[in-house]
C-alpha cells in the first residue's frame, strides 16, 4: 500500500510541478505527527478548502470512540487518533479510520497507569499527538504510558513510564507530543516530579538514553528537531529556558535563558533559526542554533515583546511569523527581523495551533470557528470564517487536499467541495 501510494504521490508531484515552472505543488502529503510533516504545521499541498460550514464542505464526519485533544495524524489511507474515555480517563484508545470515508478500521484499547489532573476542556489523558513512520504508530498518554502499535493496531511494545519513573505530576495533564528522530522516539517529561528527557528505541521501546532534568519545573511544550546533515539538534522549550541537546545521547549543547515560567507552545524552525514563544506576556525569540553553553547573549537574533500566546503554538509561513494569542489577536512579524507587519483581532478563545497550506493560514478557535487568511500579505487579508458547529481544541491536520478536525466527539474531513469554494490554486 505504501509503495503504491508513494508512486502515486510522486507522479502527482511531477505532473503538477512540470507545467507551472515554479515551486512544485504537492497534492498528497502525509501528516505524520504533531504539526505535520516538518513539525512546523505547514503543508506543501495546494488546492485546499477555504469555505465550509456545519452542513457544507464536509466530506465526512464520524463519531470517535472516545474524547481527546490530540491532533489526528494521516498516513496514506489511514487517519489515526488517540482518545480516552470521558469519565475515568483510565481507558486509552488508539483509533484508525479510513481516510476516504472516515470508517473506523480498528480500535485498540489499553489501560493507563496513573490518571492525572487535567484541564476541564483543553487537555485530558489523550492530549499528546501520536507519531508514525508509516510502519508503526507511537502514542504517549498523560497517564505516563507509551505504546507502539503496527499499522493494523497490533501492540508491538509498551512502556509504563509512570511505573518506571514515577507518575506524571501535572495539574493540566501531560501534553508534550513525542518526536521521532532517526530510530529514536524522544519524550519530554517536565513535571512536578523528577523531570527527564527520554529516548527509546523505536523497534523495541528500550532506552537509548535517559536524561534527568533536576530542578526543571513542569512545561507542556513538545520537543523540536533541527535536522542537519552533519549533526541534528534536539530543541526543548521548558520553564524559563530553551535548550539544545544532542539527540544521539541527550547531552546538553546550549541553553537560552529568558523564557517565561510556563511554557506550552512548540518552537518552529526556519530561515536557519529557532522561533520560540516564551509564554504568556513574555517575549518571542528568534535564535540561531549552535554554540556551547549559555548562548542567550550571542545567539538571539531578535525579540518581540507583544502578542505572545499562552497555549497555541506560532507558525512560520514563508517570510512571515504569525503569533496567535489565546484571545484571538494575530500578530504578523517579519520573520527575519522581528518587526511587526500587522496586528489584527480575530476574536474568540484559542487553544488549537494554527496550520497552513496552499497559501492560507487557518486559525481555529474553541467554538469551532476557523478564520482563513491569505499568507504572505502585508496586511490582514481574511478569506473566510467557517463554523464547524462543534468545539475545537485540537489542532487540525492537512493531507490529501483535506483539513481534518478532531472535536471532543467527532472526526471530520473538510474538503470544501459542497460549498463550491475550493481554491483552484495557490495564490
Amino acid at each position, binding site marked *: 500500500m505504501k509503495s503504491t501510494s508513494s508512486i502515486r504521490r510522486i507522479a502527482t508531484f511531477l505532473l503538477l510541478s512540470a507545467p507551472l515552472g515554479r515551486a512544485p505543488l504537492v497534492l498528497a502529503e502525509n501528516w505524520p505527527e504533531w504539526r505535520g510533516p516538518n513539525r512546523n504545521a505547514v503543508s506543501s499541498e495546494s488546492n485546499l478548502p477555504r469555505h465550509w460550514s456545519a452542513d457544507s464542505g464536509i466530506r465526512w464526519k464520524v463519531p470517535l470512540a472516545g474524547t481527546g485533544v490530540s491532533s489526528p495524524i494521516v498516513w496514506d489511507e489511514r487517519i489515526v487518533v488517540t482518545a480516552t474515555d470521558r*469519565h475515568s480517563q*483510565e481507558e486509552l484508545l488508539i483509533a484508525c479510520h479510513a481516510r476516504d470515508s472516515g*470508517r*473506523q*478500521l*480498528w*480500535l*485498540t*484499547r*489499553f*489501560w*493507563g*497507569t496513573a490518571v492525572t*489532573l487535567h484541564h476541564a476542556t483543553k487537555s485530558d489523558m489523550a492530549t499528546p499527538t501520536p507519531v508514525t513512520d508509516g510502519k508503526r504508530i507511537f502514542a504517549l498518554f498523560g497517564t505516563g*504510558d507509551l*505504546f507502539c502499535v503496527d499499522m*493494523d*493496531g*497490533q*501492540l*508491538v*511494545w*509498551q*512502556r*509504563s513510564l*509512570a*511505573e*518506571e519513573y514515577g507518575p506524571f*505530576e501535572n*495539574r493540566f495533564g501531560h501534553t508534550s507530543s513525542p518526536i521521532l528522530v532517526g530510530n529514536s522516539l524522544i519524550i519530554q517529561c517536565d513535571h*512536578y516530579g523528577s523531570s527527564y528527557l527520554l529516548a*527509546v528505541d523505536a523497534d*523495541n*521501546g*528500550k*532506552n537509548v538514553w535517559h536524561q534527568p532534568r533536576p530542578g526543571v519545573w513542569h512545561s507542556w511544550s513538545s520537543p523540536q528537531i533541527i535536522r542537519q546533515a552533519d549533526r541534528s539538534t534536539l530543541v526543548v522549550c521548558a520553564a524559563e529556558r530553551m535548550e539544545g541537546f544532542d539527540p544521539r545521547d541527550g547531552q546538553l549543547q546550549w541553553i537560552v535563558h529568558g523564557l*517565561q*515560567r*510556563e511554557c506550552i507552545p512548540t518552537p518552529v524552525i526556519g530561515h536557519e533559526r529557532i522561533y520560540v514563544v516564551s*509564554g*504568556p*506576556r*513574555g517575549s518571542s525569540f528568534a535564535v540561531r542554533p549552535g554554540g556551547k553553553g549559555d548562548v542567550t547573549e550571542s545567539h538571539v537574533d531578535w525579540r518581540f515583546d507583544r502578542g505572545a500566546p*499562552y497555549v497555541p503554538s506560532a507558525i512560520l509561513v514563508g517570510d512571515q511569523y504569525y503569533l496567535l494569542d489565546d484571545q484571538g489577536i494575530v500578530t504578523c512579524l517579519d520573520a527575519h527581523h522581528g518587526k511587526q507587519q500587522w496586528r489584527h483581532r480575530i476574536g474568540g478563545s484559542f487553544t488549537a495551533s494554527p496550520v497552513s497550506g496552499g497559501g492560507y493560514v487557518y486559525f481555529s478557535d474553541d467554538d469551532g470557528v476557523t478564520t482563513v487568511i491569505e499568507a504572505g500579505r502585508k496586511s490582514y487579508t481574511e478569506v473566510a470564517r467557517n463554523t464547524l458547529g462543534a468545539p475545537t481544541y485540537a489542532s487540525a491536520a492537512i493531507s490529501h487536499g483535506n483539513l481534518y478536525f478532531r472535536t471532543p466527539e467527532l472526526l471530520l474531513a473538510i474538503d470544501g467541495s459542497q460549498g463550491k469554494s475550493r481554491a483552484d490554486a495557490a495564490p
Partner: protein
Amino acid sequence: MRSTMALAPQDIGSHPARVLLAVVIPILLVLVGGGPFPAATRGRMARAADDDDRATQASGESRLSADEVSAAIERIMRAGPNSDGLDNARNASRELSRAPAAILPELLAAMGTANPVAANWLRQAFEAIAARELSRGSAGLPRDEILAFVRDASRAGRPRRLALRLLRQVDLDVDRPLLADWLDDPEFRRDAIDALMHQADEKLNMRAVEEARSAFERCFEHARHSDQVLAAVDKLRSLGTIVDPIPQLGFVHRWWVVGPFPAPGMSGFSTLYPPQIGGEAFAFDRSRIYTLDDGTALRWKWSESTDRLGEMNLVQALGPVKESVGFAYSEIECAEACAARLACSADDNLSIWLNGESVLAREQWLNGTRLDRFVVPVKLQAGVNRIFVKICQGPQHVNPEVPNNWSFQLRFCDASGKGIRFVCPLSNPDPASNK
C-alpha cells in the same frame, strides 16, 4: 484490515457455514469433554471433535492446554521495565489471542496484576478472543463464568469492568439487575449511584415524593464522588431535607489561622517561621502574638469555611497578599484509633503535620486547590488529633488576569472515600471577635 476492537462489525463473517460452525462448535466443545453419552454418541462425538479441530484450525484458533495457558500468562507477568521480557510477553500474548474463549475468565483473573505492562498484554489477548467470539455470534463465550467474575467485588476493578463491557455487547441490560447491589461496590459504585439518581428523578416526575426522597437519601449515603454527593444534597434540599456533605466526606472546616508572614519570591516553603519553631505546632497557643520586623502583630484568628466542600479561602481569612505564608490549626476527636487517608490540596505549597509528625510537604506552585490532589495514609489516634498546616502564597502570576488564589482543603476518609467519623472540639470562643 484486522480489528483489535472488542466488537468489530467489519470482521463479522457472513458465510452461512461460518455461522453454523459458530453454533455447533461450542456445543461440540462441551460434548468432547465427556458426559453421560452412550458409546455410539461418543463415536459421533469423536468424529465431531475431529471436525471441531479442523474448524478450530480454520478459524485461526489454536488449542492450548491449561498448562500452556498458565505458562503463557506467566511469561507475560514477567514483562518488566525498559521493555524487559518484551519478546516473551508479545509472543505469549499472541499465542493466547488464538486460544478459545474458554480461557477468558483466566485472563480476567490475571489482569488483576499490579504490573500495568502485563495487564495490557493480557488485555490484547482478551480483546482479540472476544472480538473473534462476538463475530461468531458469541455462543462460545463462557458467559456465566464471566458474569461471576463481574459480580465478584474482591476482583480488581478494571478487569471486572472490561468483562462487563463484553457481556453488555451480548446483552445490553445484563447489569441492570446488578446495579442495586453495587451501591458500595469498589468499581461500580458510581454507576449504581447514577442509576439510583435516575430512578429517584423518575419517582419525582411521577410525584412519588417520599420514594424519591428515600432514593436520594440512599444516594447521599452511598456516594463517594463529590459531584454525586452534592447532586444528592441539592435534590434533598429541593425536597426540604437538609444533609451536610462536610461530615459525609470528612472535611475539616473549622480552623485557627495566622498570617500573613512575609515570604519574598518563593522562599516560604523552606523558611522556618515562628509558629513552626519551638514546638508551637504541638502545643498550640491561640493567645500567642507574632510581631513582624515592621511591627505588625499577627494573632490567631478563628475561621470557618463556608464552602460546601470545606475549602478554606485564606485571601478572605488572612488578606489578599502575595509572597506570604499562613498557618492553620485544628483538632478532630475520634472515638477510636483508625487508619485513614488524609486527602488534601492547596494553592500554593502545602505542608501538614498530624499530631506533631510531618505527613505531607509539597512545594508546588500555581497548583489550584483541587479536591483530593494529594492522598497519604495516616493513623488517627483515639481522642484528640492535632492538625497543623502551612500554606505558602507565591508571587502574582505573570498574567495579571490570573486570580490571586490562596486556599487549602483537607479531609480524612476511608479507602472508599467516606468521611471518617469525628467531631471538631474547637469552636469560636468569641463570635464577635472575627466580625
